[in-house]
């Protein structure tokens, strides 16, 4: 493992040291070398094109619907050449959750930060619990960790179909194809679906009718399966979103055999549905790629992404930063950073210290500090690392060259990294580290899964690393992640039965009185490495004298909705839009719908409620929450 840009070297044992020189983290001292088009070059090109071309439109889509939360997109569209010359993603909501957490009892963090996002409704509560446990030195009992895994697997069961059928699905439905891509409709009517024997739709046109909003059978079925998975979640959490059962050191669920049996019987209904889901989202790319190869470019960008891992080994997880590389490696989904398709590290410490957040193009004042030169293990930390960051929110006028969003610019090794549940598929395909399972296998280049028999037969499926990374592959990988997560739920349920059999009933390590006494009075750091329906989710906190003194949330949609960084590199949404061709008929500029741009954006599953930053009054802001596991609020 080594960083390409950050001034950090690693010795043979993986310990990091800072390379010398004054201000090694300075923008000019550590400049990413992958800047393809500078802002100046981009502007000049647009100026040249505008000078000789009347069909460049400056358009702002506000709001973009069928995503979670508030996102707007500004584009410069060249309708003559069918290109998006420029794109600016705007997170249009700020709420100030980190500020609300400042100075509070650490016990409040779980239920307060949960409200950062109601779409990925349970993930923040869990992530906060992990951050608190690290800071307070608490380790949950095995059954507590197993129940958390069950909850979070079941939550994916709601989250993935919600996206695929309510948010993204309509973009591929009859209602859109007939209006935006009419040339595809006759083809769809004659195109036999290769997976018709699994999902039951003979022709692609039948499948597209089923994707129609509200009236389509796949739309309705998707909605209903989100409800089934929510039923599973609330058996354990009481309510959803915002679980009520997460406590520092475990959960408070009263686990009975009935709880496990109900979980089992409801989960059992999902596997047939998972087969249909994968079949649908395998056939859609096949049809579009065949219809027009340019669809491979819709939403494309390098396969460069990051994930903090998900679902702990109940016997390995000990809540410490010191051992996080060991327990991280034993997760049901391995942590990792992927650069241009290649897995470069699975160590949580590398993932952590490579992280930086910049605010040049966001409505904040600069507020990086050098408070922590290293992490608790002595690895160097950037002044822009979340543990070093205070944020001073400053609402202001929108200026595409200056500040235009509430989302910060998150970078890893100064690269724009993408987050998504599909990052888990990409990392797990390569890592070969996931636990031994009858149902899931990491082959080094693919993820192989065995679907248990339901009313239809069992089936082995294999998800392969795609050659291109685009909107269609995001959706396909998400459909496979749905199965993956449900298999983790099944494995975790078996673990719970096993523990039950052994007479184990303890779900939390401390009683409320012990918890109160355990609140440390000295200075502590904590980080929760976790995930969401949209991938990556991390909470960093600091506490002192028994109160939270810094709280930072970095959500997947903060990563994806990132604006330009200090070197002019666009964030993932912006980059994906600029790489998207306009495939629709542009002969009449008035009929330009931008459907492919929307397919590109929605394939990320944007979730904006989490992007929140805060200040303390008098214009001084102390800390912020960034975009949700969702996006930019």
């Amino acid at each position, binding site marked *: 493992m080594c960083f390409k840009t950050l001034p950090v070297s690693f010795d043979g044992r993986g310990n990091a040291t800072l390379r010398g020189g004054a201000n090694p983290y300075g923008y000019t001292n550590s400049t990413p070398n992958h800047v393809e088009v500078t802002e100046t070059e981009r502007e000049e090109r647009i100026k040249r094109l505008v000078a000789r071309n009347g069909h460049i439109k400056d*358009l702002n889509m*506000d*709001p973009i*619907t*069928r995503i*979670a939360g*508030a996102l707007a997109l500004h584009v410069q569209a060249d309708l003559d050449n069918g290109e998006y010359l420029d794109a600016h993603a705007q997170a*249009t*909501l*700020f*709420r100030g959750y980190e*500020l*609300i957490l400042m100075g*509070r009892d650490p*016990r*409040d963090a*779980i239920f*307060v930060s949960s*409200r*950062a*996002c*109601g779409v990925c*409704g349970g993930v923040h509560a869990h992530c906060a619990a992990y951050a608190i446990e690290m800071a307070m030195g608490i380790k949950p009992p095995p059954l507590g960790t197993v129940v958390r895994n069950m909850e979070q697997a079941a939550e994916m069961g709601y989250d993935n179909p919600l996206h695929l059928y*309510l948010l993204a699905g*309509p973009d591929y439905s009859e209602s859109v194809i007939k*209006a*935006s891509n009419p040339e595809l409709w006759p083809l769809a009517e004659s195109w036999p679906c290769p997976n018709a024997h699994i999902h039951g739709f003979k022709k692609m046109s039948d499948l597209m009718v089923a994707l129609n909003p*509200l*009236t389509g059978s796949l739309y309705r079925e998707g*909605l209903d399966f989100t409800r089934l998975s*929510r*039923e599973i979640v*609330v*058996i354990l959490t*009481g*309510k959803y*979103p*915002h679980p*009520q*059962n997460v*406590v520092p*050191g475990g959960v*408070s669920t*009263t686990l009975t055999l009935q709880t496990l049996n109900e979980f089992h019987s409801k989960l059992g209904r999902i596997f047939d549905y998972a087969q249909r889901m994968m079949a649908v989202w395998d056939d859609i790319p096949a049809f579009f790629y065949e219809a027009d190869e340019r669809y491979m470019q819709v939403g494309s960008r390098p396969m460069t992404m990051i994930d903090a891992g998900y679902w702990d080994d109940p016997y390995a997880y000990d809540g410490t930063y010191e051992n996080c590389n060991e327990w991280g490696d034993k997760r049901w989904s391995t942590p990792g950073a992927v650069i241009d398709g290649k897995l470069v590290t699975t160590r949580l410490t590398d993932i952590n210290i490579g992280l930086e957040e910049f605010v040049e193009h966001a*409505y904040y004042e600069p507020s990086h500090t050098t408070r922590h030169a290293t992490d608790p293990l002595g690895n160097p930390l950037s002044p822009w690392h979340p543990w070093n960051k205070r944020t001073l929110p400053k*609402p202001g*006028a*929108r200026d595409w060259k200056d500040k235009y969003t509430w989302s910060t610019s998150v970078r890893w090794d100064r690269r724009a990294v993408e987050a998504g549940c599909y990052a888990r598929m990409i990392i797990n395909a390569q890592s070969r580290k996931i636990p031994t399972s009858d149902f899931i296998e990491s082959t080094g280049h693919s993820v192989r899964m065995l679907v248990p028999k339901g009313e239809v037969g069992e089936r082995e499926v294999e998800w392969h690393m795609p050659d291109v990374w685009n909107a269609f592959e995001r959706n396909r990988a998400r459909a496979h992640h749905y199965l993956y997560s449900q298999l983790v739920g099944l494995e975790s349920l078996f673990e719970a039965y096993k523990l039950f059999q052994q007479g184990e009933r303890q779900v*939390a390590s401390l*009683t*409320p009185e012990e918890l109160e006494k355990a609140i440390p009075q000295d200075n502590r750091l904590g980080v929760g490495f976790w995930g969401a329906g949209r991938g990556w989710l991390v909470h960093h906190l600091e506490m002192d004298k028994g109160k939270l003194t810094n709280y930072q949330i970095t959500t997947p949609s903060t990563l994806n909705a990132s604006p330009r960084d200090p070197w002019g590199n666009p964030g993932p949404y912006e980059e994906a839009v600029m790489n998207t061709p306009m495939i629709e008929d542009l002969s009449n*500029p*008035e009929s*330009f*719908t*931008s*459907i492919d741009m929307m397919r590109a954006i929605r394939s990320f599953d944007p979730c904006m*409620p989490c992007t929140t930053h805060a200040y*303390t009054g008098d214009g001084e802001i102390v800390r912020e929450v960034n975009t*949700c596991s969702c996006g930019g609020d």
Partner: protein
Amino acid sequence: MIDYHNQHRDLIPGSPAQKLLEGLGRAVGFHDLDHIGAFGMPTGAYMEDMLAPAAIATAATRFGPLEKVHAFWFAGASCDGCSVAATGATNPTVESMMLGAHPGIPRVILHHPVINMESGAHYMRAAEQAMEGTLNAPYVVILEGSIMDELLAFDQGGYWSAAGEEPWGKGGELRPVSTTEWVARLSINAAAMVAIGTCATWGGIPSAEGNPTGAMSLMDFLGKDYRSVLGVPIVNIPGCPPIGDNFTETIAAVCYFLQGFGPLPEFDELGRPAWLFGETVHRRCVRGAYYEEGQFAHEFGDPECLVELGCWGPVVNCNITSRGAVRGIGGCMNAGAACIGCTMPGFPDKFTPFYKRPPGSLASTTVSRMTGSLIRPLRKFSNNNLNREVRWDKTGEVTSGFGREKSDPGMLAEVTHHFYDKMRRFNDNATNDGAAWGKIGDDGGDGRHPEQARGFKSGESSKKAMPGRR
């Protein structure tokens, strides 16, 4: 009939809403949709028109005068959790309301950013029409998330929460329009203003101590005297998240009334549906009886009453323990989760720190521990007896192969149960002697009660007594 097109009333003087619109100035003009063309309109049709063929009912089956109603869903300082909760509702479902598939409910034209096919200016068009008074039906505004003080941000040239942009800047320039501004402008001619979730109803977490945005509730924003054009104050459906069914059912109940067949729904003094929030959550709590018997959970995961783990249920208005969270499943205390008061105006600051027993519970738990220590042994005593077949009492043998620690009741218990049964059957008419109807050879149709016919007569041993309830 109310003239939605021309009626225009002012906002309550001195309310934050009125101050905001005074500060922002008049809204003049809307988008030029010709210029925008089909941008953001991938289906070539508005959602209302797309769904119309599936959703329109004729007057014959409509059950009332309203054919359709528009519902504008806005998100202020929100996590979208209320939207998610609403999509989980099943009594009725959101999709059945949108498709007019629920008899008696007018077709609901929902304008929701998570549902609609149109984006950008096309998505905002209906809201513009509502402002202009050209919308083709009455509308309600539903707000999730709190209202933030946008003047604070506007003074710095920015916003906290925006939804769409309009040419309302200086000289007609496009500026992001805050959710708060939309809510203020649309409240003027709305048929009803509905706050969903604790942020919109009472401010919630975004308005907690230390917040930078000046977040507040919809009521605080529009003012005490606000009335919709139908004369209704703000309707509040709290919860963080709310139960989806509480929301859809309330909307449905109002529709039933407007259609002329349902009763006038009753709202309490804080605008909550009284039939849903009239009771404390403790009264229907599945663990309430543990409280009565003085048994309390000490560790997370224990099955008893959660009050000492930090449960505020006895003083919180909510119905989740009886209604469940999704399709009747779940409920906080049902699962083992303590109530933190998320439906209450005092949430969160009057309930923190979490996981700590409410100090006021000491008095009542002490009393219930005392009574419980008396009641529990008595109930256990009876429970033991009731766990025996009458036959076992006669034969003296319990036939369960799982084994019982104690198969014989013991002399004292037998005597006590004997007198207990006497008490139970005191004044029982069946103690009168009489020939039993229905016995073989004695079924002459004398009209006696069948119970008598089974042959239980006074004077027989208590071992033959019918099992009964305490």
